[in-house]
């Protein structure tokens, strides 16, 4: 950890069956990952109300990930990932309007067998958010008032 640098805080909403398992596997396999990502497990990305993402940013997250099972057929609950697929682009538009930079929100699909992909995502995304700097959304909102 770099004591001089900014360490981004990233919240990841992962579906239990795919990406969470991948993350679990990545951890167990000791794949190299920075510790910046905090994981919140949901049963399915379909459970992810876009409000959760906003809440995370509001509470202080610098970046948010939502990741679940691959469409078309992997979703454990058949179609939950499709609902996510519909909600997330709309959410992106909203985040943009709020002034939250594009690079701070990532949503995608990682299956349970793709642990290396998860580790890579963590590395890349952490670096990406680090470059963007801290968001401090709460402070920003308060300061604008």
């Amino acid at each position, binding site marked *: *950890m770099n004591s001089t640098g900014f*360490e981004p*805080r990233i*919240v990841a909403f992962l579906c239990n069956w795919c990406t969470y398992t991948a993350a679990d596997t990545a951890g167990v396999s000791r794949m190299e*990952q*920075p*510790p910046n990502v*905090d994981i*919140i497990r*949901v*049963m*399915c990305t*379909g*459970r*992810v*109300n876009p*409000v*959760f993402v906003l*809440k*995370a940013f509001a*509470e*202080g*997250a610098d970046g948010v990930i939502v990741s679940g099972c691959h469409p078309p*057929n992997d979703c*454990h*609950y*058949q*179609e*939950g990932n499709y*609902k996510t697929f519909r*909600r997330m682009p709309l959410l992106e538009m909203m985040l943009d309007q709020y002034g939250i930079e594009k690079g701070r929100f990532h949503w995608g699909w990682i299956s349970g067998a793709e642990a290396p992909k998860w580790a890579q995502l963590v590395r890349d995304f952490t670096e990406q958010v680090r470059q963007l700097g801290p968001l401090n959304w709460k402070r920003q909102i308060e300061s604008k008032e």
Partner: protein
Amino acid sequence: MATLIIDGQEVHAEEGQTILEVARANGIEIPTLCSHPLLEPYGACRLCTVEVIRRGWSRLETSCTHPAWDGLEVKTRSPAVIEARKVLLELMLSRTPNVPVIQELARAYGVTEPPYPVEDPQEKCILCGLCVRVCRELVKANVLDFSQAGIERRVGPPFLEKTRQCIGCGACTIVCPTGAIEIVLANAAVYQEKPLGPTSAIWVPSLQAVPRVPVIDTDACIRFRQNDRTDGETADACGACQMLCEAGAIDFTQQDEIVELDVGTIIVATGYNLWDPTLLSQYSYGQSPHIITSMEFEHLSNAGGPTSGQILLSDGRKPQRVAIIHCVGSRDHNAHPYCSRFCCMYSLKHAHQVRDKTDAQVYEFYMDMRAFGKAYEEFYERVQEEGVTMVRGRGAEVEVLPDGQLRVKGEDANLGRLVQVDVDLVILATAIEAPHDADRVAALFGLSRTEDGFFAESHPKLRPVETNTDGVFLAGVAQGPKDVPDTVAHAGAAASMALALLDKGEVTISPQIAVVDEELCSACKTCIVLCPYTAISFLEDKNVAHVNEALCKGCGTCVAACPAGAITGRHFTTEQIMAQIEGLFRMPIPQLAEGVSP
């Protein structure tokens, strides 16, 4: 009860019986042509003439009409009778010299050549009147009758013109002893005189049917058809089956019954349909009676089939060259892209059967040989050793030649050449597909379908017999192409799972389910369509949504979507997740000790 003597044998007769009926019941043979057990006796052919001695007077009478009175003495083969039959057959043979049944009967009485000048060698009708009587008495269509008299007498519809009164039932052709009446089937894909489908309106579906009891096809049955045609006026046409059934088992008044059962589990084992090869015209299916599907070949080769299991062409010859084409409609982007899985093995079996039953050369056009199972590969080798020629390349086209032979064209990929072979019989290993009413079945049981059209299992690897609807299982090809051993295993699995469910008597469900707060629910119905398990229903009386806790899997999609926030996802409530998010940022960031890298 009457007693009479026939050929020296004492026999007994019931009231109303004729001499012919009594003789036949006692195993005494009398030749007949115009008599039929279901029709009134007519007495036209005179062949059943016997000598009847009554009160000392001897006369020649027809046994089909003469009542079996008490005290009669009957001689069925006295010299007078034999001479009479001989002369009658001479007369008949001179009228219809080329009718096999007349030739046979005549030969039995020593007549080999027609002794009188023959007027029309192609004449087949012997004016027995069976067609007229069956049409009048049984079918009650009254289409056929005699017209003109004497030697001009002939049978036909009024003025010998086609008439719409004829319902095409075919009773006249069946009853005609000489084959003078023919029904011509248009577009018969298989042999006209030996159709592979049901030949009568009452039939046993197959020799392996369970129960092996005949059914009446009410669309073909004369009684039902006539009843419909005449709006109930002719309600008792035919009924031949009922008249003949000794067990009295036929009941025309049976109605469809709708039975309601409360069941705990459902196993969907609706099988498959054969794809229609006419959809790919290059195979020319339907253009020749000798291009048949694999299923038709199975029927042909079956001991209970139209040829008692012999492999014969439509004219009764054995084929000399046979081609089997794999993947007709399978692995084909113009039809079905998937592989139908079990056709390779049965095509090898067919090749083996052809080699075994005939001396024909067999050419098998295949793309890949799927011999995946136990002893399958060994069988494949064996068939090759039996001399079947394997051509690696899908049979591309079947051409019907003018002389009736079939030209199969394809590419032999191993040789890298286009090849063609002229054969007598082509067997198309036709693709299988989901049954044609699969969408209705799916809607009924809440099943989804995979891209290939078959019903979707819960998980392609781990849950082959379960569906997304709890308690509904899949068995067999309904879930996807598989051969018999796999079907048995699959079905066994479905049965076990169903039994396990039933056995428990109760269903254990996960507590992670969604619950609707009826007070908060605003009846927008957004959640209802979202649920992939159809677990949410709308209660009209309460005007709220309701989650079926047995069906809910707890994915939380409805929870996230509810605009009113009326749905709680137990154990993953919004409050809990929010608390988690808050908690993450209340905690201090974990500080690692110096020098320790993450």
